């Protein structure tokens, strides 16, 4: 079996690319039309946020942006399966998950604008920090899950009392030692963690086949826990599969690997040029599997949404984008002087002295000691 083509027999799908509901022997989606319309809203807002951030990068307002384009269903379907105590350890592309969890989208931009290092309320939102070092967060997620279990938050019989963790990572990340070690730890300690791999087929320029010769979800069995591959562009299936995995984790059943089979429709980041390594045909194939279009088709046919609904949603998305842009432009560079205090919990005398030296150095320009260089330093 080729790892780079979807094998229909092992892909959980509940909504076809054409927008038709289909049955699956093991999974079903029980939500109503309003819930589906809600997912559509999440996905549309997520995509709009992403488009605006890409535009901001093009205009020099962000240093870089990692687009989620094409991965909206994988992110929204999994985020909407979370219970009230569940915690997410993201990678760096999970902007739609953040949106669903109530992170203020402008807070996502700071890291990419170069004004902070990812400065949202990671505890309050339960959407932890972005991690740029590939795979590291899967170990943190596992350790966090082990701690939840110690704290008696597993197996009490309700999502209100129990908690689980979702670790997001990519197909490329599955090659990292850290990710494989997290599988070992989670399995060994039966930790309440869901490993949510967005297999978007590419790790920058490297295709899936460079990382694995078997479908990724099947790796799980070697570590001793279940793996399932879901159509990552089908928000209903992702929701159903993730919910099952989370229930299992919260009930003390241990980890699950979910492979959301999807596609990175855009470049790896705004610095990347995919025309160097992949064919336009592939993009066209996946365009027909768009995660948003199929939900629109479903809602149209079922009569649950009319054109007015879609128009209002588009307007809401534009408003979000306008607000995001306005507030992005207001994000200011931090005060480096203050950052000396952020290095340690218990400040050292050495660093306090260095901070003082820095202050005096900067002030020496401001008092006009060297007029010409003032702009250099306060630029």
């Amino acid at each position: 079996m080729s790892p780079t083509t979807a094998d229909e027999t092992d892909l959980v799908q509940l909504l076809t690319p054409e927008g038709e509901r289909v049955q699956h022997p093991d999974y079903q989606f029980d939500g109503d039309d309003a819930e589906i319309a809600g997912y559509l809203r999440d996905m549309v807002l997520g995509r709009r946020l992403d488009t605006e951030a890409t535009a901001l990068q093009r205009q020099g307002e962000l240093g870089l942006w990692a687009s989620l384009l094409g991965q909206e269903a994988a992110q929204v379907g999994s985020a909407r399966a979370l219970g009230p105590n569940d915690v997410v350890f993201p990678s760096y592309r999970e902007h739609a998950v953040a949106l669903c969890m109530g992170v203020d989208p402008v807070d996502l931009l700071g890291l990419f604008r170069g004004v902070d290092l990812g400065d949202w309320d990671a505890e309050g939102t339960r959407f932890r920090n972005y991690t740029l070092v590939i795979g590291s967060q899967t170990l943190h997620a596992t350790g966090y899950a082990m701690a939840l279990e110690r704290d008696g938050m597993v197996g009490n019989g309700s999502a209100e009392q129990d908690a689980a963790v979702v670790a997001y990572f990519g197909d490329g990340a599955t090659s990292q030692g850290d990710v494989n070690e997290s599988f070992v730890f989670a399995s060994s300690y039966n930790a309440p963690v869901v490993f949510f791999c967005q297999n978007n087929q590419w790790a920058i320029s490297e295709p899936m086949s460079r990382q694995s010769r078997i479908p990724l979800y099947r790796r799980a069995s070697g570590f001793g826990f279940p793996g399932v591959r879901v159509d990552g562009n089908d928000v209903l299936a992702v929701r159903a599969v993730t919910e099952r995995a989370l229930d299992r984790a919260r009930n003390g059943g241990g980890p699950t690997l979910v492979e959301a089979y999807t596609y990175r429709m855009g470049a790896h980041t705004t610095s990347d040029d995919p025309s160097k390594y992949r064919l336009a045909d592939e993009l066209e194939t996946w365009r027909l599997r768009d995660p948003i279009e199929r939900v629109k088709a479903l809602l149209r046919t079922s009569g649950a949404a009319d054109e007015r609904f879609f128009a209002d949603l588009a307007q809401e998305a534009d408003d979000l984008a306008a607000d995001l842009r306005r507030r992005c432009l207001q994000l200011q560079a931090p005060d480096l002087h203050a950052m000396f205090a952020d290095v340690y919990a218990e400040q050292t005398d050495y660093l306090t002295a260095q901070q003082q030296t820095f202050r005096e150095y900067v002030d020496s320009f401001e008092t006009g000691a060297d007029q010409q260089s003032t702009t250099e330093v306060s630029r």
Partner: protein
Amino acid sequence: MTRMTLGKALNAGLRRALEADPKVLLAGEDIGKLGGVFRITEGLQKDFGEHRVIDSPLAESGIVGTAVGMAMRGYRPVVEIQFDGFVYPAYDQIVTQLAKFHFRTRGRQRLPVVIRIPYAGGIGAIEHHSESPEAYFAHTPGLKVVTCATPHDAYWMIQQAIASDDPVVFLEPKRRYHDKGEVDESASPLPLHQAQVVRPGRDVTLLAYGPMVRTCLDAAAAAEEEGRDLEVVDLRTLSPLDTATVVASVQRTGRAVVVHEAQQNLGLGAELAARISEHCFYNLEAPVLRVAGYDMPYPPSRVEHQYLPDLDRVLDAVDRSMAY
């Protein structure tokens, strides 16, 4: 003589090494079709094939660890770490394995592996993409650590590193990749582990390497207008350090300022200051001063210009040195 960028010079040097020795292999993430995220290996897979220019799985420990194994079979792997901040998953393989084999085997096992790392800041990147990890490697016996500052050196030093029978950490100043300069392909190059006085001067010695060499040359040019004559030494080799060139310079000037992007605490400046005080004690007119990154994690890019040594900070240190 050909005028080219530092990045192109590395590409040309790698090409020449691949041509010269069939045992030379390149490996790393995205180095094949894409030519690496900085395009340093552009076109090499096309010309030398997928067996010699290898796209690796996304695993740095694996990249270095398998390079060790291939070197044991007589290959000369040149691996690319995509960014400085991503070398740490490979740190174990580098310091516990690669660096020690020669010693452990009483000299029987040579591991001619080159680890190329685009390093240091100044390009407005997000976190983990602007770090200067040289001291971690220079501190490790068994590794050699070098860094180039000009296209000419890039072209020659990469070939010399590949030809070396010791493991070499080869640091590439990413913000200078687009700097242009003359490359003399027929020159006989300076030995790899030799520093170079790139601007002679009488008043103060500026000791720099990699991205800071140009910063120091700019500072020296600015100081000249104020009547100060600064000498600039491009260290080129960080381990081993070329103590002789450094000492000779400081004995002439009596003053030294070390400039590096890496955090100050236990950076190369500390070792240089110690060696200078050991060898030049009676020549010194001032203590050795350091201009370095502050002792904090690399900050967000919008303030990196305040964090990084620049012309003003170098001249400020020169003033302080001269004031003694």
